[in-house]
């Protein structure tokens, strides 16, 4: 059985309106932040990003498994460049 309305329906309706506005504001703030990052800092962030991606591409060409196998080999079996040439033993 429902008998009372502690906040009062009008008061509660007003509060729901305030909460709704607060929610919309939070979403607008976050969207605004993303737009700010792209408009104001986009160029420098993009340059940094491309530099990082290039570096990671160089690293990804080396197989980490091969690297681990090479490092685990005894010193005598490790690849040593021949003098005066580009071949490796």
């Amino acid at each position, binding site marked *: 059985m429902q008998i009372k309305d502690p906040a009062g329906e009008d008061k509660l309706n007003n509060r729901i309106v305030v909460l709704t506005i607060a929610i919309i504001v939070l979403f607008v703030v976050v969207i605004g932040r993303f737009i700010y990052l792209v408009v104001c800092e986009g160029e420098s962030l993009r340059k940094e*990003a491309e530099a990082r991606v290039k570096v990671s591409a160089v690293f990804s060409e080396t197989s980490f498994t091969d690297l681990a196998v090479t490092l685990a080999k005894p010193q005598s079996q490790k690849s040593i460049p021949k003098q005066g040439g580009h071949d490796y033993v």
Partner: protein
Amino acid sequence: MFSLRDYLYIDKLLLALWLTLVGIGLFTVCSAVSEGYPEFIKDSVTNGHVFQTIFAVVLFSIFVLNPLKFVRLISQYALFFALFIAVLLTFFGTHINGEIPFFKLTLFGDTQVSIYGIGIVVIACVFYFSYLFEAEFSAFRTSTLAKFSHVFLFALLVVLCFLLTASSVVTLFIIALMFAYLKGASYTSMSLRFASIAVFTLLIVLANEYRLRRLLTFLDPWDDPFGAGYQLLISLMAIGRGGWTGQGVGESAFKQGLLPEGYGNFIIAIIAEEVGVLGVIVLLSLILMLVLKVFKIGKQLYSAGNYFGASFSWLTGMLITVNTFWHCASVSGLIPTIGKALPWISYGSNNVVLYTMLLAVVIRCDIERKLSER
């Protein structure tokens, strides 16, 4: 009683929004983990997210098709349940960076399942506060002793959660604050409560060296670009690289192992890189539409006299908003980095299951309102 015909009364817009978000989440998580991660992580994340999505759909059907009498009945014990889970977490939870957010269970031989205990605690509190809100309207008024015991038990839960994860304490405070606001607390009292929560949050941050370092890193991530500031910087670069329209779906470079947790707590950065800020705006607009619809349902439930459903809808809407804000704001460097999952989109924190359960209860309340008005 269980009835398939109840499906006819489901709010179509809410159902469509939920399915769209779950679909986007499934696609994004599987895509985000497809390259650059070791096979065991790929398998665990992809299988885990698919399993959670299927489980969420089953749970959705169960909650939507069955009357809420039982849920309303158990809601009054939800605080005890939350305390029980918090105690279990304290003793048996898994430690990560000084926090204890989940349990790890070993099932089916070697398969490990993570149960995000702290999320269950928060959800249980939504049920409990909805029960309290309804009790405020009830003919059987709560005695002063009962009210005191409610406050005491909630305070105990806050202390336990303080030992588990700091962000959960802030979430619990937000739920309690919103409950007080809906109950009709004056703006002066609300301001005082808000100020004390702000001071308490600051103390939580200052009390732990790891949290303090994260706060200082947020102020200047370039100070330690390969250490504490690494994740934030990479996510900012991903957003910058995406620009307005993005690099194209599946074309993210940072998801290839460069951004740790790119499929979880930093997923919006990967989305921004692939579909740009315009894509992020569309995604956030979908979540906002869902929240506004949930709020509208809450208002209709209130007018129909379903105070449990009304309070539950408003608290659910607020919880989705707060977690979406935390996720996006921390990934974009607006607030300190807080490991928060984006509702229905991120992998982890059982977020697909937990938010689906909340939404299913809201939809069920709406169905019952429509059935009673028929």
